[in-house]
């Protein structure tokens, strides 16, 4: 099976391409590269395990917690 989408999908897609000044495009590329670089940083758990894990992060005390203060929840849905 081809990895490419069917031709009908390609023809029917609405391409959201912005044509702007070269400076704008450079800025966008910089931001894109930054986002990709950040995404490549393993989570603390992944770094500890040595592999990518589907386990859910709950909180990170170093974003606000200490010896005497509870952590600030960073995933925040049900904790």
């Amino acid at each position: 099976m081809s990895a490419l989408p069917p031709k009908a999908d390609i023809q029917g897609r609405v391409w959201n391409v912005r044509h702007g000044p070269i400076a704008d495009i450079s800025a966008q590329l910089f931001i894109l590269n930054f986002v990709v670089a950040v995404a490549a940083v393993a989570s603390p758990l992944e770094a500890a395990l040595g592999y990518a894990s589907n386990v859910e992060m709950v909180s990170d005390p170093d974003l606000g917690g200490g010896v005497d203060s509870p952590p600030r929840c960073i995933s925040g849905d049900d904790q």
Partner: protein
Amino acid sequence: MTNVMHRFACAVAVATVTIGLAARSAGAAPPTSSTSTSTESAVLAAYEPRTGRFLYAVNQAAATRGSISVYDIGAGHRLVKTIETVRDVDDVKGIAASTATGWLYVAYRTRSGVGMIYCLNVYDDAVLWNRAIDPDIDRLAIHPSGELLYVPTWEGGSADFINVLDASTGDVVRKVYFSNRSHDTLFPLSGPLFQATKAEDESGKYLYLIDPQSYAVSRIGPYAGILGPYAVDGMSRYVVNNVTDLWGMQVADLKSGRIVTASLAEHPPGEPGLLHGIGWTPDEREVWQSSSAGDPHVYVWSMRDPMAPVLAERVSMKSRHGAHWLTFDIEGNYAYVTPNKNSDDATEIFDAHTHKSVGLIGSSEDMIEIDFADGKVSRVGDQYGVGRVVRPSTN
């Protein structure tokens, strides 16, 4: 929060924590035996291990509770000495030891319900410190460096954190918050820190993983019920879990997040309760699971496919009562199956390969192997039956 933002937050946290750790390390005093402050230790036998494999077992029978009996594993588990330690031990909760320092730690509760830890220097059997830990203690773990202890705040308590202690003094250096009624803590060979809780607010249905550098907390679950004891394989990929009201076990794949249930066919009359002891054989071919309090059997699972365990054998214990814990020697030759909590029944030794009973030692469920080479601690085992197969990463 999106995954990218989540990771960005983690990246910032890692940088912050790295600086914090460096500062803490710079200020931490190295462990030294010159900090001895207690005279409570009295060595009954002058035997000083030089070379060999020894099982340090904290006695839990009423008459000897809290003392440590030392058995020579290579000499048929011959009792070589019993170390008197501290007074007023009512309930032994856990044991840990460090190769780096040669210090052994026992968490216990007193008759008046105070959570305590004592630290024993295995080189001279002196109790270095013995102190109350606020608010309480439970089955503790130690960082491989020997510098930090991770101490849950008791399954019957309400505190929503665990304590991180300076292992040289017992001082609290940090609290990590996530769930209440923290119970069993484990630092397996490949890390990170694992923690189960008995929380009844649904958070007890998750197993927690704590990064020992950033203290970021992750969790896997929900399981079928509140978790009991568990054990982790050598690569920290698979966890086997006892689960309340499950007659069998659940296995979690930490990579995929998937949890499967391996059920046993039948259970004694009444509710299943909580099967308690569980552990991987060091070669990870099997998981042994002790039964409930009234069932004198051990269930041995074949773990050829960790996510599809197959019951291989039901092993009978000499005791007519149940078992509460089990663990193995480092080489995987022996399984130690303990009697019920604070029972006077013996701890039974099985050949881990043939599954045959080979002997009995005094009642203990808090045991750890300590090996000596030329008078120095060369390696320590674990109170848990942890997997010991460590392969190079293939990711």
